[in-house]
């Protein structure tokens, strides 16, 4: 995103003391060899957007098949591959890289650092992703097809699968390595490279949430790598970690997987919390309410995330003591999450709010994420979870927190920072259209899934009984509306990158007060070579 503005605005019009053109190659080699955090941030974000559309097409195929009862478009096995790869691609290809993209762009700018701590490793952690994504997509074309056991890859089903599963396992390994490197980079940058005077408790909230997210990533990515490696050796090298006949236990995989999987949920949402915590104060023209309690709430959520994993497994058959422990621990997460929501509301309260697109998406996030929080609370209660586990209710719940949660926050962040990144204001009318279309179609798609779930429709099925027909039809219509709405974002984005729009001032948002807004728009290729001093 910085490419064009940089070449035009900085390279040609302004004659800096040093010419940064001389420091890097041009054309494709610029992107392959870049060690600049802004270039790498751009790469991450564009990669993530591409994967978002790839995963989205899979979702639309799923919804097309589910438009009516009966099998119409795809075979059941291919349907299972679609649900599996939709999940993997959206999580590892779209949401997580988008969060890292925001971190690459914003963390150095917000703490007044010239770049990330390990610039070359930064390049490597991005360029690991395209081969991993390629392997995932390639798996559709190998004998036996892509992995079809759900993104959770539960054995023994995943042991039965063909080589598509092996490609998936290796892709997960590579993406895990990329995430760990990215996290090390972010932690080191934040802990060592803050501008003089910026103590940890003065840091913008986005940096705090990412610092904690990075620790979560380092803690759990090796666990995931370990569990899929055991899967690999069970598949090919005669081990029996998950095979009862050889002394193993299929449920062991679930324990290990969800020990990764639950913190993973917060890995996907905490950076979004950070973005929202920047945007709401800006557009309310008030400082964030309860900064310290926000930090403590994020830390508590992160710590609690390690002791709730088995709430994904209430139906495997645990002793009553296990059910009770995991239910109580899970319910406890509602407290810090509630604190965050209340703090955001208190920030809005008595403010002087305006509702540009970033704020709309932030409010959309707040509203829908809280709905996802309610359903999360319902699911936390073991007796109700027994009814809802593995039904569409769960599908509705996690799309409320991941799509309306993480994704909406990323859209909010993109509209918020695009003027800074590209030097061009986004088209407000397009932004508003994008928001309202997304908001309406999102709810048409996912709200009915709550009803399907309570009525008992299992997830991951290509065909369903007649009583589920009406809501499925509604959801499918909504899904296509939601998918098409995202094209509005692409148009708005392309217009910004091409410089088609009003020129952005250094600080387009009246209420913004973090360091990036002290820089010109578009932001120069190299920034904060002399650190700013924070009072």
């Amino acid at each position: 995103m910085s490419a064009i503005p940089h070449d035009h605005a900085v390279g040609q019009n302004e004659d800096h003391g040093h010419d940064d053109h001389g420091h890097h190659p041009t054309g494709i080699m610029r992107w392959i060899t870049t060690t600049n955090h802004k270039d790498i941030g751009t790469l991450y974000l564009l990669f993530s957007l591409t994967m978002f559309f790839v995963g989205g097409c899979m979702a639309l195929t799923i919804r097309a098949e589910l438009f009516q009862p009966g099998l119409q478009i795809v075979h059941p096995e291919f349907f299972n591959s679609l649900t599996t790869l939709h999940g993997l691609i959206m999580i590892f290809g779209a949401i997580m890289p988008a969060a890292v993209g925001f971190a690459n762009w914003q963390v150095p700018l917000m703490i007044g650092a010239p770049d990330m701590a390990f610039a070359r490793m930064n390049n490597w952690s991005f360029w690991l992703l395209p081969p991993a994504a390629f392997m995932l997509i390639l798996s559709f074309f190998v004998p036996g097809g892509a992995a079809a056991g759900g993104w959770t890859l539960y054995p023994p089903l995943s042991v039965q699968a063909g080589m598509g599963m092996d490609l998936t396992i290796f892709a997960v390994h590579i993406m895990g390595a990329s995430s760990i490197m990215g996290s090390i980079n972010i932690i080191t940058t934040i802990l060592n490279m803050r501008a003089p005077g910026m103590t940890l408790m003065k840091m913008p909230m986005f940096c705090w949430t990412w610092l904690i997210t990075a620790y979560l990533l380092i803690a759990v990515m090796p666990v995931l790598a370990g569990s899929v490696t055991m899967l690999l050796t069970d598949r090919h090298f005669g081990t029996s970690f998950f095979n009862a006949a050889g002394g193993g236990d299929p449920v062991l995989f679930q324990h290990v997987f969800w020990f990764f999987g639950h913190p993973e949920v917060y890995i996907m949402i905490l950076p979004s919390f950070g973005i929202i915590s920047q945007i709401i104060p800006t557009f309310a023209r008030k400082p964030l309410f309860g900064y310290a309690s926000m930090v403590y709430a994020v830390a508590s959520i992160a710590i609690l995330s390690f002791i709730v994993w088995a709430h994904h497994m209430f139906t495997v058959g645990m002793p009553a003591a296990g059910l009770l422990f995991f239910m109580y621990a899970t319910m406890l997460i509602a407290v810090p999450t509630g604190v965050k929501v209340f703090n955001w509301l208190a920030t809005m309260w008595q403010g002087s709010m305006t509702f540009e697109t970033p704020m709309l998406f932030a409010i959309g996030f707040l509203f829908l994420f809280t709905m996802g929080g309610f359903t999360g609370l319902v699911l936390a209660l073991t007796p109700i979870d027994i009814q809802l586990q593995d039904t569409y209710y769960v599908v509705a719940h996690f799309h409320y927190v991941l799509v309306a949660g993480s994704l909406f926050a990323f859209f909010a962040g993109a509209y918020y920072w695009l003027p800074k990144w590209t030097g061009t204001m986004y088209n407000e009318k397009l932004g508003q259209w994008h928001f309202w279309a997304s908001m309406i179609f999102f709810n048409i798609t996912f709200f009915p899934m709550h009803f399907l779930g309570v009525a008992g429709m299992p997830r991951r099925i290509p065909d369903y009984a007649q009583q589920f027909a009406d809501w499925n039809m509604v959801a499918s219509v909504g899904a296509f509306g939601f998918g098409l709405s995202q094209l509005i974002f692409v148009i708005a984005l392309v217009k910004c990158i091409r410089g088609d729009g009003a020129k952005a001032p250094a600080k387009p948002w009246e209420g913004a007060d973090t360091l990036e807004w002290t820089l010109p728009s578009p932001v120069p290729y190299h920034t904060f070579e002399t650190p700013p001093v924070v009072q």
Partner: protein
Amino acid sequence: MVRNQRGPRALARMLATGTAGLAALAALAPGLANAALDMDLQPPVTPIAQQMYDLNVYIFWICVVIFCAVFGVMFYSIFKHRKSVGHKAVQFHENTTVEIVWTVIPFLILLGMAWPATKTILAMKDTSAPDITIKVTGYQWKWGYDYLQDGFGFYSNLSTPLAQIENREQKGPNYLLEVDHPMVVPIGAKVRLVITAGDVIHSWSVPAFGVKQDAIPGYVRDTWFKAEKLGTYRGQCSELCGKEHGFMPVVVEVKSKEDYAKWLADQKQKVAVAAEDPAKVWTEADLAAKGEKIYAANCVACHQATGKGVVGAFPALDGSKIVTGPADVQIALLLTGKTGTAMPSWKQLSDTDIAAVITYTRNSWGNHTGEAIQPAQIVAARKEH
């Protein structure tokens, strides 16, 4: 078609429910739920399911109250504290009292939710002193039910015809939720289920009973229910178990004590009659006729009725080297399955059934080996595999 009759009515109801927000609220309310559009938990017929249902209603209303309070504040603020109405920002950013209050109050609300949930969990896990124990085994893709005290068991397969699934026939009222042999239990009896699986993880679920228990290969888990209303109750496998995951429903018939006794006697008699002597020598025609049924129930989903399989996914049997080659190889394949593929082991079928289905495949479509595989051959092969 059932759906078509219901369509306009459903649409009218949807429109009548009004705006998305109102529909949302009305729809989530179990009390207000609209039966035709299925927005509610299925009517409970066991004490545990009833407790789950009540808990859901209780939690729902707590959430509604919180929802109204939180978003009442948010929307009030959005309308009153905006720049366009001239509101000036008040620069406060801390208030310890408020922060303590909104930490403690949610905690107390959670305690109020945890209490009834805990009571239900303890009741749910009490599988002691059952009247009947039934062993449930999940297979790809059917259920096996063994009445342990009465010494008989049977398989329960989807009975919806393929033509309905492929939209060549009108779908019946219980489309995808009907089986050839349902589980049968007496009303008012405490039924303990011991649940396991033969291949991958499945999950046995009947929403009206409040039961959902994963079936895990190599391990046995138990759960229980006590149905208090006569009728037929339906559920589905609730853990992804492969290609036909969406096609292995659970059906349970709750009968009166007398009807159950009658059914039980019937089953026992059938078992006695059907006890097949594996030493019996069958003719090829008899075996093939029996094998056709076994094939339709177990093999047709992948290998297809035409025996042509699905190109790229499931191999054809018609003209297959294994099916037309030496019988030993095919027998071994059926007994052990083929690792790395979707072909499971079929050793749970009886010797006669395996012999019959192999005979059928070796003498159908373009295969004409003329061989009749006898149950005795399977008995011998089992010793090796």
